[in-house]
């Protein structure tokens, strides 16, 4: 219990740092970017909204920086993220973000889980059959896989499967001529559009899982308790799962949390390449349009998502490893 509380405290601290970064960065950058943003888009939204934005970024206000900061914190905690200036002028940031979330959740969520399961499985088998054909060929292949830029792979896949072979569509989340509905036409269309981006994400992220699982498995297989299991006459596959894999996967779960940063990065780039209107794509739209309120909100959202995922992997570790539980 104490462990959980400490973790939550840490997350709260991190969130606070992220919020503060959002507050400080635009004020720290050379050539006041907020001013440029507002000056460049004066006619687009109502003067009242403009004044609110100016206040949000600390321009034209007589408040001291400290009270600006406190006001900012108060606004964020009540969900007042402001209004989009350029991406969808006048619309509340919250509304825009909400529309993008389901797409990213679907694409990234499913692909990450698949990559984790497949990658871990292949890693386990590769370590178990050391010296086999799979194992000798695997490492260099996967080393190369981990250095492929996500976005470039997406481009290449578009080139091959989209443009040349016409097998799959390669932009947007679904055909814009269709109206969203719970029928097979719509759903299959959505799935169709998700294949290429999903496959790209899968390939680029699976390499790490395979390699790290294989390496931890190899170390685990040398442990005495695995030898003991052999001595007891337990069948091979059971040793592989109950004794080796169950122990080897633990450091991987913690690594999962840390590699989330990369999954997020990959998702952003892939959504951009495929014009897949999820959170990542939206972030880049905001960047290109100097839409700082939207950008800041998305940054916070991504941070929260990462924190939640880390919390989940902590919980999973606690379930699988009895040593982390209990009062010690």
């Amino acid at each position, binding site marked *: 219990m104490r462990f959980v509380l400490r973790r939550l405290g840490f997350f709260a601290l991190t969130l606070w740092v992220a919020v503060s970064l959002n507050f400080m960065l635009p004020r720290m950058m050379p050539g006041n970017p907020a001013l440029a943003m507002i000056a460049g888009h004066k006619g687009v939204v109502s003067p009242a909204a403009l004044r609110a934005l100016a206040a949000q970024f600390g321009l034209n206000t007589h408040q001291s920086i400290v009270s600006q900061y406190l006001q900012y914190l108060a606004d964020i905690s009540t969900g007042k993220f402001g209004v989009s200036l350029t991406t969808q002028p006048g619309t509340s940031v919250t509304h825009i973000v909400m529309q993008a979330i389901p797409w990213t959740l679907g694409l990234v969520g499913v692909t990450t889980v698949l990559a984790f399961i497949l990658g871990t499985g292949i890693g386990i088998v590769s370590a178990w059959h050391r010296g086999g054909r799979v194992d000798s060929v695997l490492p260099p292949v996967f080393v190369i896989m981990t250095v492929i830029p996500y976005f470039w792979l997406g481009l290449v896949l578009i080139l091959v499967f989209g443009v040349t072979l016409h097998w799959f569509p390669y932009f947007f989340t679904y055909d814009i001529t269709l109206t969203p509905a719970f029928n097979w036409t719509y759903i299959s269309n959505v799935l169709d559009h998700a294949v290429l981006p999903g496959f790209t994400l899968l390939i680029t992220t699976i390499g790490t899982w395979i390699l790290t699982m294989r390496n931890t498995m190899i170390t685990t297989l040398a442990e005495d308790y695995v030898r003991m299991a052999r001595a007891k006459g337990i069948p091979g596959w059971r040793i592989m799962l109950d004794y080796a894999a169950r122990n080897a996967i633990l450091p991987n779960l913690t690594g999962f949390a840390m590699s989330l940063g990369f999954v997020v990065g990959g998702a952003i780039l892939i959504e951009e390449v495929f014009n897949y209107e999820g959170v990542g794509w939206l972030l880049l739209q905001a960047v290109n349009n100097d839409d700082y309120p939207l950008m800041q909100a998305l*940054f916070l959202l991504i941070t929260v998502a990462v924190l939640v995922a880390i919390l989940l992997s902590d919980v999973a570790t606690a379930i699988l490893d009895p040593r982390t539980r209990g009062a010690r």
Partner: protein
Amino acid sequence: MAIPGVGTLGGPGPAGDRGQAGAPVPTPFGVPAPSGIAGGRAIRRMARAITSNRKATAGMVLLVIFCFIGLFPGLIAHDDPNALIYGRSLAPSAQHLLGTTPFEQDIFAQVIYGARPVLLIAFGAGLGTTIIAMLIGVAAAYLGGAWDGVLNLITDVLLVIPAFPLLIVIASYLHGAGTAVMILVVTFVSWSYTARQLRSQALSLRNRDFLEAARVRGERPLYIVIVEIIPTMTSLLVASFLTNALYAVLFSSSLQFIGLGNPAVNSWGTMLYWAENEEAFQTQPLWIIVPGLCIVALGAGFALLNYAFDEIGNPALRPVRSMMRGARVKNAR
């Protein structure tokens, strides 16, 4: 007293219980396992290990090729990468090996000249990240107590905040990052992971006997850190450098691809940005393929070397030899 073969990192002073270049001292009932390795010896070991391991050699060859290209681009590409005079969107030919862009630039020249900024960022950010991580990680481990707590907290928070989105946000406010800024920004988001690893290893070394011997000899803490701890961590430091250089290449190329690099600086990521902008899928597929392949090749150089170092450091990971065929049958899983 000069100790032959150890090198300057071993220190000219009394060698303590490391004896001659780390030779173990026999006791009546056997010989204890050798303790930490002095820096000079570690580097010679590494050099030998690189030449004997195929992956390491391949990685080294790739890096050397790219360094050569980065240093002497003029020797390989004869056209000016920035000149807009070569004819619009020409197909590959003998004169323009990869064709030209819609802006009338020679793509091959761009690829060759594009190596230098990428290498600068890779080595710059790689070194910067490793050095900062080393300072903070080792300081946290050695100082302990409140210092450790504070440094740890900072490291952990920065570790958890997603790196790439932060990179995007910062670069966005700056309206694009040239080479120098890119190095700084990438270093800022990357140091925390390595700092954690280095702190971990430094902690485990802290209580080892040879450090205790140094303390007992009366050496000052700074001496101990620089002369005893850091050389022992050489292999981890090298591995960290390689990893960080790799990620610097990927991060910076990604930023450039989405337009947050400096579009005027010609590098592979920027080339891909323009290629996508100009929808080169139908017209100039090589414009898309080749710069990406270069990124992969350079990255592979770093990664292969890194992977080989993993195997060198942990012999259990090495490929199992096939002369064990007989044994494998007997001990079939």
